[in-house]
């Protein structure tokens, strides 16, 4: 289909990895210079203050060569065994409470197991993550813990690690590409979390309407308007949480429920700005289902902007808000009675669990399983009080 030589479609100027070594062209022409500039600009914009400062020109065109030609330094002889006990940790970003908690868990785990760690952050750029991981391999780390920025593009660094016999552990997100072998994936089940949050929202609605949420016939009678406030549409976590929502709310199970879709980009300001007009146009909205707690905090602000204050928990006019993640601001809002509930993940536990698996492998063993699902649980006002001091939102260091 895309063979340019066969159908005469636009010529690909990139060096063909099968015929030429991927060397940099000595004299770039105008358009490739522009490309390089845009690449550098992109790096500056998206890498921000990342730790990957040693990379510029090569980042303009992501290497397309097969993994064999990627390794710029020869792997140490007998790679697997002679490599050190330092663990390379390649995080996707620090853009979220959740990742800060995860980093804390990894650091605590490393300290507990007596391992050294080298942590790099890619600031959501798959290209800089690839370079960071390749640098970690060159430095001779014994294992790599990675939060892949992109499920497809992360295959490249994983293959490079496979070549050098460095075991890779993925947290929070999977690497889906073929031919990239991950030793162990540790994550929370996003579909199940989405379903749990949606089910709690449904049970609150049923209670308000005098119906029994456990009886499918009762649920079919429910008439209500619900806003489905998405995260980033392209993120797999948002898609999975949407799938969880659709297991609960759908034409078959809840025919009387009108679902209004909006996109809040996992961003509180954006969520506030898009939700307020929706609530103004639809004053009969009863539930806002949010893909994460940033969305939920934005939703709370939007409700406050229109209604000036929050009705009591049992007031039938109150717009119910349910979020996911369990971050600090949301837990505080739940304790104050401003939002109904969140489904808490356990990022700190996730980080610690991952390091425990790494330790087993570094000691010559195998991970317990190649897929570890870390627990998640519903936090309403009751649990927020009962579990005070035990929720990750309470255990998170720094901040306020």
């Amino acid at each position, binding site marked *: 289909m895309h063979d340019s030589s066969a159908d005469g479609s636009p010529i690909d100027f990139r060096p063909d990895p099968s015929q030429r070594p991927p060397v940099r062209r000595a004299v770039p022409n105008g358009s490739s210079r522009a490309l390089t500039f845009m690449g550098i600009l992109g790096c500056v914009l998206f890498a921000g203050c990342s730790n990957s400062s040693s990379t510029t020109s090569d980042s303009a065109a992501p290497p397309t060569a097969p993994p064999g030609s990627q390794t710029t330094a020869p792997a140490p002889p007998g790679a697997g065994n002679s490599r050190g006990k330092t663990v390379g940790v390649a995080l996707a970003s620090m853009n979220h409470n959740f990742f800060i908690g995860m980093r804390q868990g990894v650091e605590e785990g490393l300290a507990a197991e007596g391992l050294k760690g080298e942590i790099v952050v890619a600031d959501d750029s798959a290209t800089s993550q690839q370079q960071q991981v390749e640098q970690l391999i060159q430095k001779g780390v014994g294992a790599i813990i990675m939060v892949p920025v992109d499920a497809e593009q992360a295959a490249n660094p994983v293959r490079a690690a496979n070549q050098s016999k460095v075991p890779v552990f993925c947290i929070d997100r999977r690497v889906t590409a073929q031919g990239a072998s991950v030793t162990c994936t540790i994550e929370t089940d996003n579909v199940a979390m989405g379903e749990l949050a949606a089910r709690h929202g449904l049970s609150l609605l049923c209670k308000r309407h005098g119906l029994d949420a456990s009886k499918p016939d009762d649920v079919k009678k429910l008439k209500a308007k619900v806003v489905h406030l998405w995260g980033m549409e392209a993120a797999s976590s948002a898609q999975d949480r949407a799938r969880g929502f659709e297991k609960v709310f759908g034409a078959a199970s809840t025919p009387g429920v009108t679902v209004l879709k909006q996109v809040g980009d996992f961003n509180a300001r954006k969520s*506030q700005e898009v939700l307020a007009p929706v609530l103004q146009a639809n004053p009969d909205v009863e539930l806002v289902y949010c893909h994460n707690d940033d969305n939920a905090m934005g939703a709370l602000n939007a409700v406050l902007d229109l209604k000036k204050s929050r009705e009591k928990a049992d007031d039938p006019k109150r717009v119910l808000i349910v979020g996911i993640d369990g971050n600090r601001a949301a837990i505080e809002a739940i304790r104050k009675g401003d939002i109904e509930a969140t489904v808490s993940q356990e990022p700190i536990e996730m980080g610690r669990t991952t390091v425990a698996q790494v330790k087993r492998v570094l000691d010559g063993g195998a991970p317990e399983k190649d897929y570890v699902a870390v627990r998640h649980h519903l936090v309403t006002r009751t649990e927020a009080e009962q579990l005070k001091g035990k929720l990750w939102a309470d255990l998170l260091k720094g901040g306020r």
Partner: protein
Amino acid sequence: MGRSFEGRPVGGGGRGVPATLIGIACVLLGLVVVFSVVQPRFLSPTTLSLIFRYYSPVSVLALGMTFVILVAGIDLSVGFLMVLLMFVMATAVTKGGIPPVGALLLGLVSAVVVGVASGAAIAVARMPPFIVTLAVMVGANGATLLLSGNQSVGNLPPELLALGSSEVQLLGHPFPLTILLVPALYAGAALFLRRTRSGRALVAVGANREAARLSGLPIRRLEASAYVFMAICCWLAAWIQLGVNRTADPKVALSDSLELNAIAMVVIGGTSLSGGRATLAGTALGALLLAVLFNGLPMLGGQFGDTSWRKLVQAAVILAGACLDVIQRRSRPG
């Protein structure tokens, strides 16, 4: 390009309504009609209230940006600088124990320092504004992460929230205070450009730097002052934004590009990117157009809930504004 700066429309048009404003006003009116027909609840004071609540910060950024673009510059840093100033003020109170008024002053002083530095680099050292402000943008983002640890800061004192959350009663309906503040700022700035010697000198620098220099104007100081004013606008926008979100949120400048939206508001309004021609009434209309669009699209529901359709409509409206501008200008040469 060779024309002198004197006859150019400045600050809303010295001689009648500039042609470009008619085009943009038509698009705005069309948009309001479409939204009102599809969703009758759009025509309500609440809509106006939401628009001024949510889009005042970016409108204030657009006000400063008009001056920067007038002197043939550009400022990419405004979104992230605004967020940095939010955290300078918020953490000064919560971690530094500084009283709220002191924190506000600290924010203003920080803004002026950044503005003077950028202005000096651009006007005195003659570095390209694009690169200087790109560096400030990335640096401001880094500094924000340092200050905030990427966590939002809540429980702010009322003084920090006042500007963005206070309300006034107009015709029996509550509106945010910014419905008075922002138009007053625009009017003041327009008067400054049109009626004061400094304002006219700024236009002269933007129109023809060499001619302005030969006529004895302090071109460096004038050009730099545009960036200082821009930074002060960032501070004001930061103060408003704190009240809008009731918290300092490090992710305010993510998801939408505040700097590009501010630049779009200015350029849609008819200000020339090559400098020397600016209309604040145009920027005000451009800001209103984008704000109405951002506020109205979610109301439509259906596929306009999706990012894809929303962005396509935004693109169409921006292009429509630009096309009408070109048509209007072609039909009235000179």
